[in-house]
């Protein structure tokens, strides 16, 4: 586990360390290396294996925005990294560990979605083409086909910047949270078109992160109201409000065994066991 440059950003290594993901910053993989994204315009790869904590590599970034990167594992030694690019509305895709830039995704001139705020790379088992979901400053979520470098679909889910999103590729359904007082659930149909499925009101505005548990039963949100909220993923029924932190919760993450971790600006990380998996 590690903390980001802002207090409260953290990641949870996978128990088997095959694919360490970090949250708040990034996940890494293969070489037992988590990644760390700092404000110093650098993305660092850390070797945390066997209790080590040394930076093994770093990637220079061109943007100093709020946006966190996303990682997609593509094989034992190959992985793909999505990070905000040089232009304010650009997203850069890197092939790792060689750090070669694959492409830069730039929205069409008339779209003006603002800065990308959150990224989610994913790939279905059937198709080799990676996709990227990006939440933008204007409250819209866009689906990019990375190889074609074009937007497949874009919907306006929120009126405020999208702060976090997660996607369940099996059900083709995703959820996003923004600065406003609601969560949006949307789905992806066969024609690669996004559709809003519903909005769920919250008690307090501001969601900084959303994560679906790997078993796709529940999801957790990190709230500006210092609370972590847990919902039933299929029905979106509220299940729990975890009030422990005394400042904004930046991020949440699920471990493969179902434990939930939340990192907050109050310099604390809380670990929760909820609805344990049998």
């Amino acid at each position: 586990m590690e903390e980001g440059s802002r207090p409260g950003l953290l990641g949870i290594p996978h128990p088997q360390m095959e694919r360490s993901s970090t949250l708040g910053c990034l996940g890494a993989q293969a070489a037992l290396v988590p990644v760390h994204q700092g404000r110093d315009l650098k993305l660092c790869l850390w070797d945390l294996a066997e209790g080590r904590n040394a930076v093994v590599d770093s990637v220079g970034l061109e943007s100093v925005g709020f946006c966190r990167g996303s990682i997609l594992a593509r094989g034992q030694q190959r992985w793909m990294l999505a990070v905000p690019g040089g232009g304010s509305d650009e997203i850069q895709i890197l092939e790792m560990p060689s750090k070669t830039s694959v492409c830069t995704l730039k929205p069409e001139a008339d779209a003006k979605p603002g800065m990308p705020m959150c990224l989610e790379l994913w790939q279905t088992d059937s198709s080799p083409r990676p996709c990227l979901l990006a939440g933008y400053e204007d409250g819209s979520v866009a689906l990019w086909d990375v190889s074609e470098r074009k937007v497949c679909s874009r919907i306006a889910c929120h009126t405020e910047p999208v702060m976090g999103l997660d996607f369940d590729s099996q059900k083709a359904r995703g959820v996003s949270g923004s600065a406003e007082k609601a969560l949006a659930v949307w789905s992806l149909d066969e024609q690669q078109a996004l559709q809003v499925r519903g909005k769920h009101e919250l008690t307090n505005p501001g969601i900084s992160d959303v994560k679906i548990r790997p078993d796709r039963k529940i999801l957790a949100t990190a709230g500006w109201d210092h609370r972590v909220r847990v919902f039933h993923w299929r029905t979106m029924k509220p299940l729990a409000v975890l009030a422990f932190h005394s400042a904004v919760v930046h991020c949440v993450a699920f471990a493969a065994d179902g434990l939930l971790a939340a990192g907050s600006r109050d310099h604390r990380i809380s670990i929760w066991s909820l609805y344990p998996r049998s």
Partner: protein
Amino acid sequence: MRPSPRLGPMWRLGPMWMPTAPCAFTSFPLNRMDPVPSSVRLTVREAVHTLSSSEDGGCIFSTLGSLKRYLGGTENPALPGEQEEFARVHFSAVLRCLVSKLNPDWLGLLPNGQLEELWASFFLEGPADQAFLVLMEALEDTPGPSFRLMKMARLLARFLKAGRMAAVMEGQCRQQAELAFPLLQEALLIKVVGLPDRLGNCLQHENLAEFFPQNYFPLLGEEAVRVLQAVVDSLRGGLDCSVSFVSQVVGKACVYGRQKEILGVLVPRLTALTQGSCLWQRVCWRLVECVPDRAMEAVLTGLVETAPGPQVLARLLGNLVLKSKKARFVMTQKLLFLQYRYTTPVLQSLLGYLAMDSQRRPLLVQALKELMETWGSSSAIRHAPLAQQCYVSKAVLICLAHLGDAELQDSRDELLASLMAGVKCRLDSSLPAVRRLGMVVAEVASARIHPEGPPLKFQYEEDELSCEMLALATPQPAADSPSEAGPPVAPVAAEAPDKQTVEGGVPQVRPQGSDSELDSDDEFVPYDMSGDQELKSGKVPMYVRDCVEALTTSEDWERWEAALRALEGLVVRSPAATREVSVELAQVLLHLEEKTSVAGFEGLRQRALVAVTITDPARVAEYLTSQFYAINYSLRQRMDILDVLALAAQELSRPGRFRRTSQCGSPGPTCPPSCTVAPTWRAVVDERIRRKTRRFSKGSSRQGPAGSPNEFNSVAGYFFFPLIQGFDRPLVTFDLLGDDQLVLGRLAHTLGALMYLAVNTTVAVSMGKALLEFVWALRFHGDTYVRRGLLSAVSSVLLSVPAERLLEDLPDELLEARSWLADVAEKDPDEDCRMLAVKALLLLEKLKDKLLPLSPP
């Protein structure tokens, strides 16, 4: 105990009282006058002679056989007239002769115990009352332990086992009232009821189990039922009978304190027998009516306690309360006003009985009036123990539940006046339990007495007692069993499974791979989300001065509330900044009013004040104590001052305290009761977090308490002395020795707490001296809460002032306190006061023990 010699010869006269048919009595004078001895007399005289002289077993056997003919039941019985004469005149003499012959040699004259069997049959088959009296007389005359004594004791046991006691009583019942022989009946009564005592005296360690009271009185109860059965049978046959002897037996047994044993058998049987039988009911009523006045109370209390409900009681007693003055007194006065040890079901039986018949209802109305009068009397409230007040209150509520609106309207003004007086006195009381009692009764009673008015509604915390009382106020379904009353249990049962799933953690999630669309919704049970409220952030002041400003001038209520919530933390984090404005801040907080509804306002304000006081103890304590005696404060504010001082002193005196621990605000053992109420919400939240949080380790973040000096030492004087001076100077708005005794009680408690916390400080001795003087001045105060405070203050002095200083500096005060404590421990009406006094006395004793080992060298 021996039988009185005066009675002895009386019943030996025999003929006068033999239980026979009335016709026998007509021939009685003739018999007496007749100079010619009858054939029976000759036979008996001869037989007695033979028995006393003969050593020949066969001869004795045949003589006894010839006498046995007169008892009937043999193949060759004597003529009825002769039997009657024998029973009336000669039987006692023969029995007495038989008793005198009883020894091992005599019984051994014939083999196989034939003689003994024949001997015993005279006692078991002859007229029971004579046999019983002769046996008892012989038992008491025989010096024990001896062969003869044991033989006769066994015979008496057989006599009881054979049910002859019923025959004894039945004989008395069959007698005509005018022919009964009172002195003899009295002797019989004393012996029947006193049998366990007498046998215990005679036999000492050899006593048989049959004669133990716990075995004998149930048997007596069974026998009484059999007698009553016989009485009912003969009444059905048209014969006149009296049950007064049975009444006397039952009455006397009850007076001896054997209600449980005898009525425990009698009541269930009579309950069953009187069900649906008018004759039995009449016999039963007669039975209770005939109980002598001096035994009436014992019998009635026993019956009320044993009867399972008002219906049964009404069946057993009938309209007894209307017929017997004594019974009316017991039922409507003694059981309601003079005693209070009975349980609620007993009260319900009693008042339910009064309510069940239209003739008895005026008594119930009268009882309610008198109950209300007692309830409303201020002197009763002051002097009666709490338990009795509860008892009277329950009785009031039960009466109200039974009475109809029309009946209440007739005496409405009277009831209302008493009610209002009682409510006023109770609300003035400084004991929470008394106040709550007043509120519960006032709510229920005003709704009944004055139904058209606006309903009274008080805010009180429900406890076991108030729930029980409210349940009493609802009329009960007509059922024999009182157990149907009480809080309903159904909702609890319905909730249970739900709770289980939440508590039992978390439902199972199916293994990954099963189709999640099929999973049911209720697979995940939501946690409690009631704490999820809107977050009011963004307006929280960051500095103590900002808080002061926000609290005094802000019209923005969100900011005001945020400032109040943040204040304690800010004060604790920035002590230097706080000290600059400490008195000003204390003043603001003391005058702070709850302008908007803020959850936990009292607790927030109190904790902030405590934090300020801890940060700058000398100046803030000086300010607060000066304000305590200032004009223009409400009682609430004055009590807040006391609470804050006690809590702050507790914090200061705690060795190695943490800055943040003040948050919990856990009150110490000496803290006054009401201050525990306010800050519970935080405890609830903390508890919830603790329960739902899984912590991997607790180790490193905590440090062991660091040693530090008692910070209270240097400032104890600022807390204590300004408070203790001036309690006897009344202000216009504040008179501690007058109406404001609640504050005086709190002051006494607070001073005691400060004294206790000043342990090991240098000022403890002078504080102790001042406190003992304070206690001495107020020791006879009429208010219970004040006395409790004084007693706990004495204990604090004994605990905090070093023993040798106590003895050197305060010997006279200690002696005075000791005699006062002994007095309180014995006589105070309040149980807590007595207990506190005993504790203080124990501390005094310990003090003595501590000093004694030092004195010899």
